[in-house]
C-alpha cells in the first residue's frame, strides 16, 4: 500500500553512525547507476567537520564545536528545532559560510581557500526558499543555469535539463514561467535546478516543506535515486516520517550542537525519546506504536506492519 521510494533496500540493517566504511546497499540495489548520472560516476568526496564553530556577524552563535564525518555515499538527515543551526551547517559544505574556528574538509582538503563557484561542482545545495533561487522566465533555462555554470553545454546540457525535470515531474512545464507555478512546484523546480548539476554531494534544505503526499513521494524518489547512484545525500527536514523512511543516518541538532547521531532505529528508538523531546521533536508514529505494542524498533510504517504480521503469524500458529 505505501509507496516507498525504489532503489533503497529498507530491510537491510541501517548503517550505524560509527561505521563510515560503506553504508550503501549491495551493488545489485544500485540499479540507478548510469541511468541519469554522467557516463562515469564522479568520485564522491567524504565530508568532515573538525571542531567547527560559527557565529554570524551580529554575534549569534549558530554552531559550537561541531565534529561530524560523513562518508562517501551516505544518506544523512539533519533534524532539530527551529534555529538549531541546520541551515548554517549545510552552508558550510560549499563554502557559503566559513567556520569562525575549525575546519571543513572534503576528501581531507580544507575547503577554505576554494571559491564557492568551484565547490558548486562538488556540492549541490538546494535552498529552503525557492524564490531566492529562481530568476529565469522559463523553467528550462532555470534548470540549465547551474550545469551551464559548470561548463556543460550542447546536447549534454539539454539531456540534463530534460532528465532533471522528468525526475521531479515537471517535464511538461519546460517552457512555463517559473512564477506561474505554485509554491510546491517552484520548490520542486529549485530541486531540479540543483539535480541537473549532478554533483557528487547533494544537500537539500527542507525539500519536503509545502509538498503534498505526491510531492513528498517525488522527493523521496530523488533521494533514493541519488543514494542508489552512490552519491552522498544530506537533507534537512522537520518531517520525521520522511526522515525515517529515506535516510540511513539521522543527526539531531540542538542549539548549535549535535546531540544525537545514528541510524533511524537508534535515534527514533525508545531510549532516545527523552533527548528527542528535549529538542522538540516527535519520534515517528510507527516507532511509538511499535514500542507500545512491544514490537521493538519499528521506525517506518513498513517495518511496523512487518513486525505486526510476524507477531500475528506466531499467534495464529
Amino acid at each position, binding site marked *: 500500500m505505501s509507496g516507498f521510494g525504489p532503489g533503497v533496500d529498507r530491510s537491510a540493517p541501517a548503517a550505524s553512525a560509527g561505521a563510515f566504511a560503506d553504508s550503501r546497499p549491495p551493488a545489485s540495489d544500485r540499479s540507478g547507476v548510469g541511468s541519469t548520472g554522467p557516463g562515469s560516476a564522479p568520485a564522491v568526496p567524504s565530508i568532515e567537520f573538525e571542531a567547527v564553530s560559527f557565529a554570524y556577524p551580529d554575534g549569534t552563535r549558530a554552531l559550537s564545536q561541531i565534529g561530524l564525518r560523513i562518508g562517501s555515499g551516505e544518506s544523512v538527515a539533519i533534524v532539530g528545532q527551529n534555529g538549531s543551526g541546520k541551515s548554517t551547517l549545510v552552508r558550510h559544505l560549499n563554502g557559503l559560510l566559513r567556520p569562525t574556528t575549525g575546519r571543513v574538509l572534503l576528501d581531507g582538503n580544507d575547503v577554505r581557500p576554494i571559491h564557492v563557484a568551484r565547490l558548486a561542482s562538488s556540492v549541490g545545495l538546494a535552498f529552503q*526558499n525557492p524564490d531566492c533561487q529562481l*530568476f529565469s522566465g522559463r523553467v528550462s533555462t532555470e534548470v540549465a*543555469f547551474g550545469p551551464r555554470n559548470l561548463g556543460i553545454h550542447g546536447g549534454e546540457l539539454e539531456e540534463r535539463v530534460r532528465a532533471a525535470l522528468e525526475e521531479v515531474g515537471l517535464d511538461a512545464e519546460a517552457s512555463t514561467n517559473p512564477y506561474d507555478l505554485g509554491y510546491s512546484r517552484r520548490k520542486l523546480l529549485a530541486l531540479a535546478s540543483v539535480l541537473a548539476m549532478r554533483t557528487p554531494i547533494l544537500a537539500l534544505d527542507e525539500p519536503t516543506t509545502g509538498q503534498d503526499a505526491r510531492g513528498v513521494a517525488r522527493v523521496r524518489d530523488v533521494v533514493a535515486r541519488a543514494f542508489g547512484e552512490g552519491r552522498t545525500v544530506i537533507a534537512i527536514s522537520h518531517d520525521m516520517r520522511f526522515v525515517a523512511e529515506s535516510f540511513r543516518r539521522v543527526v539531531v541538532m540542538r542549539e548549535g550542537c549535535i546531540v544525537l547521531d545514528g541510524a533511524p532505529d537508534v535515534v527514533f528508538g525508545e531510549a532516545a525519546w527523552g533527548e528527542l523531546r528535549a529538542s522538540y521533536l516527535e519520534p515517528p508514529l510507527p516507532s511509538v506504536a511499535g514500542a507500545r505494542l512491544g514490537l521493538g524498533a519499528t521506525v517506518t510504517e513498513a517495518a511496523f506492519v512487518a513486525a505486526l504480521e510476524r507477531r500475528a503469524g506466531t499467534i495464529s500458529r
Partner: protein
Amino acid sequence: MASASPITAADAGLPDYVTRQPSGFYRSANPGTKLAVAALEVVAAFVLPGWVGPLLVLAVVLATAAMARRMRGLAAIALATSPIVGSILVINLFLLPGASDPIARLGPLAPTWSGLSFGLQTVARLLAFSLAIGLVYLTTAVDDLLADLARRGLGRRVIFVVGAAVQMVPATIERAGEIVDAQRSRGMDTEGRIWRRARGVLPLAAPVVFGALTEVEERTMALEARAFTAPGRQTLLRVPADRPKHRVVRWAAIIALIAMVVLRATGRLV
C-alpha cells in the same frame, strides 16, 4: 494640524513598547519635523548655487549625525552610493560637453578641469541628498514616522505605500544576500573577474524584484484580512512626541523651503 488625541498610551497603562519614546539628540525629535528638515536640506542642496548649497547641507547633516551618534550608519549609506558616485565622476571627467580645459592627454581620452569640478559638485549634491534622507531613516523608527503621518491626517493608503517602500529596504537587502548565496551555490562566479561577475546581474535582480512585489502583494492581503480598510477612525497605539521646539523647527523648515523655491522661481536666487 494637531488633532485631538483622546487618551495617550501612557494614561491607559499600556506596556513599555507602546509608551516608550526614543531618546537622545535628534533621535527624539518629532518624525514630521525630521522629515521637514530633510526636505529643506534636499531642496537647498539643489537650489542654492554652486558649491554653497551642497557643502552647507553636507556640513549640517554631518554635524547633526555626529551629535546624534549616527556617523557609522551614515558612512554605510555614503558607501552604498559609491557606484553611482564613481560613474558620475568618470562620465563628467571625460565627457562633459563643451569642456575645453584638459588636465592631461591619455590617448583618445582627455579629462577636463571643468568636468572634474562639475562632477564633484554633482557628487556633493547627490551625497547631500542621500545623507539627508538617510539621517531621517537612521534616527527614526518607521512605526513612529508612520504614526506621526497618520496623526497628521494622511490617508491610510498613502501611509501604507510610504511604509511599504521604506520597510522594503532592509528586507530587500537581506533577501538579496540570500539570493546571491543561492546563485553562488549554483556555480555563479562572484569571486572571479569583473566581467564574469557582471553576467550575474540578471539571476540576482529578477528574484529581488519579483520577491519584493510578491511580498508587498501578500502584505496588502494580510492587512486586508486585519480590517485595514475598515471604515471609521482608527486609534493610534503610539503617539510620537511633538514638543513646542519641534513645532517651531518644523514650521521654520517649511517656510524656509517655500521661500527658497519662490526665490528660485522668481529668479532672485541663481
